[in-house]
């Protein structure tokens, strides 16, 4: 039996990797992928804590998160395609026209 602490550490590492990806990568698709990693880190936390407490709440929430993540990926990818058609680039720094 793996103790809860291990799961939480793994989850934290995954979340950190995802966050770093969002901030550091220069490709919007990779940024989206990093967001998926962060979501899954959270899912892992839910499931493991749920199991350790002996309830199913964590698993239920995880299903919701997965549904939303799927929808988000669909919308996000569509936006990315639209942006690419517009500017011929996928760097997030190219899209700063919505400023003062």
């Amino acid at each position, binding site marked *: 039996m793996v103790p809860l602490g291990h799961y939480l550490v793994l989850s934290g590492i995954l979340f950190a990797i995802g966050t770093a990806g969002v901030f550091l990568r220069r490709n919007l698709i990779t940024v989206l992928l990093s967001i998926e990693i962060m979501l899954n880190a959270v899912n892992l936390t839910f499931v493991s804590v749920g199991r350790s407490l002996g309830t199913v709440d964590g698993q239920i929430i995880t299903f919701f998160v997965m549904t939303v993540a799927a929808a988000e990926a669909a919308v996000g990818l569509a936006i990315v395609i639209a942006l690419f058609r517009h500017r011929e680039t996928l760097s997030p720094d190219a899209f*700063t026209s919505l400023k*003062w």
Partner: protein
Amino acid sequence: MLLLIPLLPFAGFVANAFFGRRLQKAISGGIACLAMVAAFVVSLVAAWPLLGHGGHPVEQVVYTWLASGDLDVPFALRLDQLSALMILVVTGIGSLIHIYSTGYMHEETDSEYARYFAYLNLFASFMLVLVLGASFPVMFVGWEGVGLCSYLLIGFYYTKQSAADAGKKAFVVNRIGDFGFILGMLLIFVTFGTLDFQAVAAAVATRAPETSTMGVLTIATLLLFVGATGKSAQIPLHIWLPDAMEGPTPVSALIHAATMVTAGVYMIGRNAVLFSHAPMTLEVIAAVGVATALMAGTIGLVQNDIKRVLAYSTVSQLGYMFLAMGMGAYAAGIFHLYTHAFFKALMFLGSGAVIHALAGQQDMRHMGGLKKYLPITYWTFFIGTLAIAGIPFFAGFFSKDEILYKTFVGTPYHHGSMVLWIVGMATALLTAAYMFRLLFLTFHGAERFATAGHGDAPGHNAHGHAAGHGHHGAPHEAPMSMAVPLIILAIGSTIAGFVGVPHALGGHNTIEEFLEPVFEVHGAATAGEAQPVTEPAVPPAIPAEAGHGPAAAGDVGTERMLMAVSVGVAGAGIFIALYFWLWQPSAAARLAQQFGGLYRLLHNKYYIDEIYDAVIVQPIKQVSTGALWKGMDAGLIDGSVNGVGATVQGASSSLRRLQTGSVRTYAASLFFGAVLILGWYLWS
């Protein structure tokens, strides 16, 4: 029944105001005249029982107007001897002036004509409310209403700058007086808890007169008197009346001579009991009245505009009425009001006929010798002049002598005063002089007028346009519609005084006895059954009962002597006028040159307008412009509003730099924000 009296002219106003524009002159004028004549007939019917037929005063409560806590003001009309006299004067003379106006205003366009008659009817309606009102607030409705109509009618030729200005001036000056009236009314309500005239009189009667103290009654009556000076053109608020001559001449006759300006006198008569209890106020009223009479008389002597002379003469005669009121000779004051209404309306209408004949010319230096062209106007005007000058057996003689006699011997409310009497006599001399000057300059002597056609003299009003169509060379006599009212008024000016022939001439002072009940409190008798006044159980603490009637008996000799003096004075005045303006016209000019300073002082009306302008109007303008407009409004209020805007703009111009547009910056700030908040909760 009583309600019908003001309602009839009001119906005329409504008809002309809403449909007059599309009506022919004959119809709109006819409606207006019919409304007035009908009101006169109703007034006669209503007043008939009171006119020596054993009737009692009647009251009609139309509806409860204001009811709030202690305050309960019904919209009530009351007809007693005083208001009966007033409604007969207002509707009677008003009708004649309406008829006259149909001729005088005939050259106006249809819609202007209807507008004129709408205003005139509205005025009559308000005036009737004023005199019939049974309490201060109802009177105040009429009081304000006539002020409004006066403004509208003075500024009737509103395209003319001077007329528009004169209207504004009249309105503003009247407002000052109205302010005093409101304050007086409030003080009375606070003191007595009622605003009904009879209830107030009954409450006052239980108090002792404020002979030596300056109590609440004195203050209240002084405030009311401020209102009266505004409406009745007394010093210091007399300045609007001469300027009011910018209006059409029949308006001057109706409003600024016969009716509205007498409202102040009427108001004091209506509250005689109240004023009798404030001897100090009576002193003030008498002094102001006699000062106004003298001042206006002297100014009238040197004015050249025919209507302005009459205007100052009106101010002067109103001064006489206030002198009478101040002496406590209320009946004499009202008597003079009544006779004055006849002869002053007559003279104004006569001057209107002259102006009409000369196509708008108002300057007496350009008249003269009109007697042979305008015989009806001349003879009627002559009768009016005799009446105002105080020639025996014309209307003005009886009323003016009554006032001067009462001034000399005193009344229960005021001791006789030699000084006031002498000033009054001096004014009588002036009156005779300036009125006959007017008569001689206008109707006698050389013909100095330019024949119509190039009659576009300065000072012309709308009648100047008449020059264009169909006026032949010589001045023409007034048409029937104008001549008939003149003749009726001339008859009135001759016989109106016979209701008040003094005992000294073997007559019977009917009018004084007729009016006496109004000026005293005997609650039940005056109030009739309509007014459940708290019975003034105590007979008035004032020595009112002792005074009237018997006082005269012993002084027949005195009265006859005074009468002889006043006739002599009037004769002297006429002689002065004859000498200076008929026999030796150059002597007048020489005298004016010799006393150049005095002449200019009088000609410029004692510079009162200029003084008011310098002392009041200009400082107010400067404070308004410098401090209130530029400092307060533009500086402080606009400044603070604009300052708030500028501050927000400045702050946001630096803050908006945070909005970089870079998605990753936003994400970073979101992340670190979340970390900070979570950290705060975890560590604390």
